[in-house]
């Protein structure tokens, strides 16, 4: 699951300095992405960008990801 999530994120954030997914069991994950694309976006828009890139993995019927416990989005310094 970690690999699938990180792969999907790399497709959406080809510029990302850092992409990390941690699994917590039971389909729960935490995600960290460091990318220029978050510059100037509000909290909601940042999280939407991340969630939309793993949308298929979160499909209640077919996805493997049940919940994202934490999303950390960072604009590189």
């Amino acid at each position, binding site marked *: 699951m970690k690999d699938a999530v990180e792969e999907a994120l790399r497709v959406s954030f080809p510029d990302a300095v850092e992409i990390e997914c941690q699994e917590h069991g039971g389909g729960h994950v935490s995600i960290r992405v460091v990318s220029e694309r978050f510059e100037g976006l509000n*909290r909601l828009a940042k*999280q*939407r960008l991340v*969630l939309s890139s793993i*949308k298929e993995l*979160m*499909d*209640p019927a077919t996805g493997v990801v049940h*919940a994202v416990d*934490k999303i950390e989005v960072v604009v590189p310094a």
Partner: protein
Amino acid sequence: MTELDQGLRDELDSIVQNHDVVLFMKGNQQFPQCGFSASAVGILGQYVDTIKTVNVLERPDVRAGIKAYSDWPTIPQLYIKGEFMGGSDIIREMDEAGELADALGVEKKTYDDVSIDITEGAVKAIADAAAANPGLPLRLEVSPRFEYALHFEAAKGNDIKRTFGELNVVLDPQSASRADGLSIDYVTEGEQAGFKITNPNEPATVKQISPTALKAMMDNGDAYVVDVRTPAEREQAVIEGTHLLDASLEPTLMGMDKENTHLVFQCHHGGRSQQAANYFLSQGFKNVYNLTGGIDAWSQEVDATVPRY
């Protein structure tokens, strides 16, 4: 993603536009059914007393529909003044950044004037355990369901602190919001001794009453006892002074003083009467009792002339 039909879209439009603060969640404010929903209501409760909640576990159509409506894959979901704010993660971040007060238009509550009491007896009873945990305050936790926990744990930044003699007590803000007027005593009853917590913030519940205790209440004229059995069962056996619950009695009951009437429900063994008691509790009665063991127990404990069947 599920398609959203127009009827449901209209309903969701109406919900988020007619309430300033709406949380789509699993469970409700008192009984959140998932950790993320619990976290969200816990944080929001520090700003506003009541929020409009929609329990998606009771509405499978809304559970799927709200995800499409907001284009957001998870529950809970918060709307403020018709605008989608985000899920539990964002609610927590906004709280920590001080942005939630602006969004909600109210200041975060402070709990500086929350008053709790721990009696001398209780402080003494805790003293040994306190001595075994030097330097640590006693943490008192009150869950949304009013379950209590006491343990020794280091204070955190936003804790509310109180001191009783040698004993330091801390509460987190969410516990404090449910603790004003709470008292902890140490009581001995016969061979048994233990802590007794009374908390005026606890919602009313159906109290179980024994036949002997009910007899005393009835002798004092303090109880209005409702028999929820069938008329046929009443012909077989009846407790003198009880009232048959039928269509004509219900409006009479509803017209009673809900704050002060002591309503007792009784059936054969205590099962059906529990259901009835729960219903009248939900209608706002504050003093609702269920006769434990029903008329059968009454016959054995109080009045053997009442036939058993």
